[in-house]
């Protein structure tokens, strides 16, 4: 999960509601018209959410554009990790996927259909890629891919194995190793070889699993961790704590590389200056023929200069009025409004960019009662929250937990979601809420006990307003509240992410999936055994044995369609139990210059894809 | 009659202020001759400093209105262009001020400040000016002048600073030196040294001096003439002897009474003049002094007294009391009669005033004890004691 950029979106774009509210009705109507559509799994969620001002990312042109030129990329935020083993942030991904080749990837216009990147085909049961009832996954890789200088040799499957195995090295500390937990030997690994990974020849890598989790592993192999890393080069650097691979030097396999010294591979101070700039240049060792027809990055641009820092309200106009530039991080609210009003063809809103919800403590206090949770959900004015977050351009009312663009979204009911009385009214319904309060044993429909509910939320941007909406909707039910507003990082690390703090409600938490498998949306957040004492992401401490079992069952379903259905069932159970209150499904705004033919990565919250973006006049 | 060095005629200086027009100087006339010393005496706010600053053009400004004539060396200083007047300042006319510490620039060496004064009026080389600066310091009695000339004002004692100020003022051999309260900030022994120095320098260099003070005692010894100012006007003017021997104005009496007298056998308290100086914006009607005058009559609130000759001589006074009454009251003051009886004296004399009271005055005063040598001598006593000092350093000035 990557809540990082999303949370900032929520904070910054929120004010947009005032300026863009007028346009809201039209996109509202069109979205309700198409809700429930998208029955095929391919881009199901995305195509049903028409939120474009300019080019809709789903329909974007990918091939046949002009080659050459230098793109200037503005980003007020810096990158975090440029090591494929560590990288876990939308902005980092924009660089990672342009320079590194994981086994699988998503094309820019898809957020749920994987295609081979370094691999030669997608493993399936029919092509022998998935065997042993989903417990063995075999992947073949392209034979002629080369690392950039100074390594400059052909990539082998051993490089992929090393890349994944080093993720368990504490000096690398990959943040999503649990997706590989079913690989044999993974749980005890500390950086050395895993018994469950074998490389029978230079172009084949085999994963042996403890459970039939082939789909999950395949999904996870689309993450940067599976991009090959040469052990002779990175191994010595991994001895440093933390590793210097990705902070000092790195080699690339993708069409671009971070500009570095060809003799040493060192980019620090050259292609990357912390907080200042990052430069991508063409990788001379890259061979465009080493791809399948499903995915052939055209790599139009000659050079990408990322300019780090600066004020969003300056960067935005620079991009909109300037040329050959895009903004990588989230535009300021004033800029989104400016773009929408005056440069509508230069802004896109990418659906499926995450969700927000109110985490309710299922384990302690008042919200252990399912009917109280339903009552609070029924009364929550989600329309008001969306307005605070930026209006209908940047958010759709959420009705359940699998958000658009994930497998199982359509099966879970699309935008309308599972039909229950408490998710029907986006403006909140006091009468419905009172029914559930009565069902919870409060005869008047109002809470009459003495407990005070602890609400903790972020103080960034418009989050305080959202906290207030929840607060007033709760107090309308007679619930006594105590509200705390803290910095977002503090909210996660000191309050909502620490179960023993017994925080009853966290109204400003959000989630971004890692890949299209609904597990990456639901597991960490609602699976009981995933609860940890600190740094916990199951903020509501949801631990229902039936739901847990259903998740395990879905996780172990090998057939993709059946798996999607199984996750949709989990979603229904979560809704039925009202384990949390979904607020909105987010859309990410992105801006570009008028002479840029930008390409949004639908699967990466709309981040610009440097391999597919081109210039009109290079 | 030879022309005086400085002849001031009907000088009027007023300033516009937020509260109204301030009549700082209101028609005063005086003259100083070369080699002579004029003392201008009065409380603060009497206009004495304004009149002397006007001499140097330092009161000029958009808010100031200056009228009258001020002839110096055949030129009217009041109509002189700014630049011409600047050339007079510090050259023909020099001035020293009350507080020698704040009057010297704290950031510049004493010598530098002297050199600056010389170079702004003479074309003189820096080294020559430096030598002359040391000579000037020596002239005013500063020991080790070659070292002192390169010291800063804060390294000098109060008395030495004033000596340095005098040296600076005299460095261009002025024809007229205006000393504005030159001793007020100094302690008594140093005061006497400075006064003696001024007198000595005048003897040697022959310049005219105007000494401005609130303390009649200061001018008692060195002034030839004294003008007493009150509320912007001269209320009495005469030779030093006249002022001390037969003062004519009740204000002068007050000033004389407030001189400390070292020889006074009794533990007599000084008699300050009661009340406060009047506002120069809304001056009292009639005789400006009437609110503070113990002898004022109702008519004095309406009649503005002119400055008139006493006994037809050069001694002038502006008082509505009859001359004989004034003489009797002064005699009464000298002999220590209490204020109530003096007031009665002034009041009972009121009726015959119209016809003239020359005959009655000695009658009533004749029974009074012998007035002795007169207050002039007595008041001179302390000054004379100090003046025996030659212009050398006091012990406190030893480095």
């Amino acid at each position: 999960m990557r809540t990082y950029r999303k949370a900032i979106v929520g904070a910054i774009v929120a004010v947009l509601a005032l300026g863009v509210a007028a346009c809201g009705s039209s996109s509202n109507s069109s979205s309700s018209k198409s809700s429930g559509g998208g029955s095929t799994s391919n881009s199901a969620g995305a195509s049903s959410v028409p939120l474009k001002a300019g080019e809709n990312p789903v329909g974007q042109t990918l091939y046949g554009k002009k080659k050459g030129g230098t793109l200037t990329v503005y980003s007020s935020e810096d990158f975090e990790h440029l090591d494929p083993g560590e990288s876990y942030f939308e902005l980092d991904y924009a660089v990672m996927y342009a320079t590194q080749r994981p086994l699988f990837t998503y094309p820019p216009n898809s957020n749920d259909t994987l295609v081979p990147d370094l691999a030669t085909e997608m493993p399936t049961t029919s092509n022998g890629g998935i065997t042993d009832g989903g417990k063995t996954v075999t992947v073949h890789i392209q034979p002629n891919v080369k690392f950039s200088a100074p390594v400059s040799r052909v990539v082998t499957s051993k490089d992929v194995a090393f890349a994944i195995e080093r993720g368990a090295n504490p000096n690398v500390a990959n943040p999503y190793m649990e997706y590989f937990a079913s690989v044999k030997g993974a749980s005890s690994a500390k950086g050395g070889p895993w018994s469950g990974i074998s490389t029978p020849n230079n172009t084949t890598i085999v994963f042996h699993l403890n459970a039939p989790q082939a789909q999950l592993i395949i999904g996870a192999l689309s993450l940067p961790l599976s991009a090959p890393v040469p052990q002779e080069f990175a191994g010595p650097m991994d001895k440093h704590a933390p590793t210097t691979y990705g902070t000092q030097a790195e080699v690339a396999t993708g069409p671009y590389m971070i500009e570095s010294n060809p003799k040493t591979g060192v980019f620090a101070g050259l292609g990357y200056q912390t907080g200042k700039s990052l430069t991508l240049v063409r990788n001379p060792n890259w061979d465009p023929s080493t791809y399948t027809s499903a995915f052939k990055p055209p790599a139009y641009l000659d050079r990408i200069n990322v300019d780090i820092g600066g004020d969003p309200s300056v960067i935005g106009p620079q991009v909109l009025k300037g040329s050959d530039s895009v903004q990588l991080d989230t535009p300021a609210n004033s800029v989104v409004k400016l773009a929408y009003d005056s440069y509508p063809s230069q802004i896109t809103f990418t659906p499926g960019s995450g969700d927000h919800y109110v985490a309710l403590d299922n384990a302690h206090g008042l919200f252990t009662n399912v009917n109280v949770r339903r009552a609070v959900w029924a009364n929550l004015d989600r329309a008001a929250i969306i307005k605070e977050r930026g209006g209908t351009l940047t958010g759709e009312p959420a009705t359940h937990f699998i958000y658009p663009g994930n497998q199982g979204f359509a099966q879970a009911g699309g935008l309308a979601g599972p039909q229950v009385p408490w998710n029907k009214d986006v403006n909140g319904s006091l009468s419905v809420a009172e029914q559930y309060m009565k069902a919870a044993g409060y005869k008047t429909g109002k809470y009459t006990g003495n407990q005070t509910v602890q609400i903790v939320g972020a103080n960034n941007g418009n989050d305080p307003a959202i906290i207030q909406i929840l607060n007033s909707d709760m107090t309308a039910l007679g619930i006594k509240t105590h509200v705390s507003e803290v910095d977002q990082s503090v909210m996660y690390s000191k309050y909502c992410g620490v179960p023993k703090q017994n925080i009853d409600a966290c109204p400003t938490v959000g989630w971004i999936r890692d890949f299209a498998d609904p597990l990456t949306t639901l597991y960490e957040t609602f699976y009981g055994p995933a609860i940890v004492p600190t740094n916990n992401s199951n903020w509501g401490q949801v631990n229902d044995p039936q739901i847990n079992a259903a998740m395990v069952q879905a996780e172990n379903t090998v057939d993709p369609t059946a798996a999607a259905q199984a996750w949709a069932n989990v979603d229904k159970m979560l809704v039925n139990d009202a384990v949390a209150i979904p607020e909105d499904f987010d859309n990410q705004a992105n801006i570009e210059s008028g002479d840029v033919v930008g390409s949004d990565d639908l699967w990466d919250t709309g981040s610009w894809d440097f391999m597919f973006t081109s210039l009109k006049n290079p | 009659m030879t022309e005086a060095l400085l002849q001031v005629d009907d000088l009027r200086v007023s300033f516009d202020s937020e509260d109204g027009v301030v009549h700082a100087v209101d028609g005063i006339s005086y003259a100083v001759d070369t080699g002579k010393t004029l003392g201008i005496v009065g409380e603060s706010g009497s206009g004495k400093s304004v009149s002397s600053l006007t001499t140097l053009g330092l009161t000029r400004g958009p808010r100031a209105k200056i009228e009258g004539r001020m002839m110096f060396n055949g030129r009217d200083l009041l109509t002189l262009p700014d630049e011409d007047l600047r050339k007079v300042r510090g050259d023909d006319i020099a001035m020293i001020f009350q507080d020698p510490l704040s009057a010297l620039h704290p950031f510049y060496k004493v010598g530098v400040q002297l050199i600056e004064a010389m170079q702004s009026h003479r074309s003189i080389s820096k080294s020559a000016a430096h030598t002359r600066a040391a000579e000037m310091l020596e002239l005013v009695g500063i020991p080790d002048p070659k070292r002192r000339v390169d010291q800063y004002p804060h390294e000098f004692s109060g008395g030495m600073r004033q000596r340095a100020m005098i040296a600076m003022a005299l460095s261009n051999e002025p024809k007229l030196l205006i000393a504005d309260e030159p001793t007020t900030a100094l302690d008594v022994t140093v005061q006497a040294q400075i006064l003696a120095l001024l007198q000595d320098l005048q003897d040697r260099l022959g310049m005219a001096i105007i000494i401005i003070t609130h303390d009649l005692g200061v001018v008692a010894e060195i002034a030839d003439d004294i003008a007493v100012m009150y509320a912007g006007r001269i209320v009495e003017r005469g030779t030093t002897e006249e002022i001390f021997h037969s003062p004519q104005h009740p204000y002068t009496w007050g000033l004389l009474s407030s001189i400390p007298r070292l020889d006074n056998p009794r533990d007599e308290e000084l008699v300050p003049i009661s009340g406060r100086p009047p506002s120069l914006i809304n001056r009292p009607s009639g005789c400006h002094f009437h609110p503070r005058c113990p002898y004022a009559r109702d008519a004095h609130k309406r009649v503005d007294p002119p400055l008139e000759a006493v006994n037809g001589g050069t001694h002038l006074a502006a008082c509505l009391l009859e001359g004989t009454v004034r003489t009797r009251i002064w005699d009464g003051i000298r002999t220590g009669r209490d204020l109530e009886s003096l007031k009665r004296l002034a009041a009972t004399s009121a009726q015959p005033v119209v016809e003239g009271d020359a005959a009655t005055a000695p009658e009533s005063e004749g029974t009074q004890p012998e007035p002795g040598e007169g207050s002039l001598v007595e008041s001179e006593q302390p000054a004379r004691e100090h003046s025996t000092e030659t212009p050398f350093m006091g012990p406190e000035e030893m480095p």
Partner: protein
Amino acid sequence: MARYIVRRILWGILLLVLVSALTFLIFDVFPSANPAQLRAGRNASPAIIHHITVELGLNHSLPVQFWDYMKGIFLHFNFGYSYYSQQSVLSLIVNRLPATLSLTVGAVVLWVLAGIPVGIISAIKRGSFLDRAAMGVALTFVSMPVFWLALILLYFFASDIGKFPILPGANTYVGLTSDPGKWFTSLILPWLVLAATQAAIYSRLLRGNLLEVMGEDYIRTARAKGLPERRVIWRHGVRSAITPVVTVLGLDIGGLLGGAVLTETVFEIHGIGLLNYDAILHSDFPIVQGTTLLAAMFIIVANIVVDIGYAYLDPRVKYS
């Protein structure tokens, strides 16, 4: 004097140690995210976070961490490494300092050249239209938020986004050594922004001082000596009135060298201020500590220089 300077420097070093200690305390007391966790990513297992905690030395008690930090500085002149980029804090600061230096020096020259004459003229022409106009403008500049002024200037004059595109805008800064011409033009707007407020403050300060000084006895003396008015104003009036301004100037320069966060952010000049700002956002404590120390050091040095300078400017002041 030498003894005095040595003593002041020793005190300054002690003060820096105290500043470090205080920074340590502040970071410990105020709720902030665990740096090890930020380093590890939000999904990292507790074991990994623990590992990183140990690597960063965060498992030690605060005094021990502080002791280690001090040892690093005094024994190896090592100011630690960024939690995020692992780069040496010292090298980051050295890398960023030229930009901040450029920004500061130009702005100082500008505001001194603007503020001092305006202050003097206002004082001399007190109450005139010129004085009122100048002080009105100064008051406006003083009350204007730097951030806002910067944005306004960019929206008006920046060559990329301005209504009157005449000057290089944000993100155009280049080092002096790489292109002096571009360096200069790219800094014009930032200099103006930084200088505007300061020039206003200085002109008001100087005007007030000079008005006070011109009422001093020694000014009357200077006039009585017959000095030309110009000399009275400059040699006697301004000389005194400017002394406190020089003091303030020294401290302001010291403060600015610690980084002009707002100006650097808006104009995207990668100086110390932006480095510090980013570090705070990332809870990158070693950098915050380093930039804080640097800022404190500049202020302490500025204080010492100002005090020594004062002894030359005002002969009454003596140190021993």
